[in-house]
């Protein structure tokens, strides 16, 4: 069998699926049943966004503060410490985001 013959066979063998009204009714029933769960997930998502931004700005501020306060001692060391502070904050932000995603996933799974 050549590639063309195989491709022809594949293209003419598409599974036939009809528009199923019953399927759509079940989708509507299920989505209506979990409306409350969805609004809770959306609320959590918005709250987490706020937390993430606040943490991010705190990290930047801490970095600047460290740099400004101790710059007179050794600028190079202060710069390094500030960068480390910002990096740690970014790691915290990312971890929080991953945790948020897993919370949302769990809520979605529970709702099923």
């Amino acid at each position: 069998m050549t590639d063309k013959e195989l491709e022809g066979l594949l293209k003419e063998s598409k599974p036939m699926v009809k528009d199923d009204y019953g399927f759509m009714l079940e989708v509507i029933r299920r989505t209506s049943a979990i409306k409350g769960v969805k609004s809770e997930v959306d609320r959590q998502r918005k709250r987490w966004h706020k937390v993430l931004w606040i943490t991010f700005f705190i990290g930047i501020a801490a970095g600047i503060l460290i740099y400004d306060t101790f710059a007179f001692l050794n600028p190079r060391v202060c710069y390094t410490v500030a960068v480390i502070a910002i990096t740690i904050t970014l790691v915290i932000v990312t971890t929080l985001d991953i945790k948020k995603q897993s919370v949302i996933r769990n809520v979605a799974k529970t709702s099923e």
Partner: protein
Amino acid sequence: MTEERFIDLVRIEQVPLRRFLLALCSGDSATADDIAQDSLVRAYVASGSFKGLSSFRTWLFRIAYNCYIDHCRKTQPQRLPIDGREALNKTADDDPDHLFRFQNLYQAIDRLPEKEKAAVILFYFEDRSIKEIAAILGIPSGTIKYHLSSGRSHLKELISL
């Protein structure tokens, strides 16, 4: 995304989504519809995080594919005899030789490794581009091309057996 908007989009996408899952489940329409329902519930709950970076269809197919993978992990892989008639919605009156060819093809597709199977189904049954398939399966375009090429080789071997 409001519930009404979500339902409207799902109404448009339900046939391709169910066809994709039906092909992945090797013609088992009950399992395919169950996975489709689960993936739509997940999609609805997560619809607040849909940012429109990809099309709604690509996003939905990605969720459905993940649900299918979850389903495969939960249940022992069952090698049921594939009913080509059910998969293709054909009746016993159709040409038996034609049906045999379809059944043979579906059995061959079922024996492909998961990623190859999904890539072949999306490319040939759903007419999706390499880029879209890459987004759905979460792997680079080059790997999709490789999966399609090795999928074709495997299919040729399996069909000619």
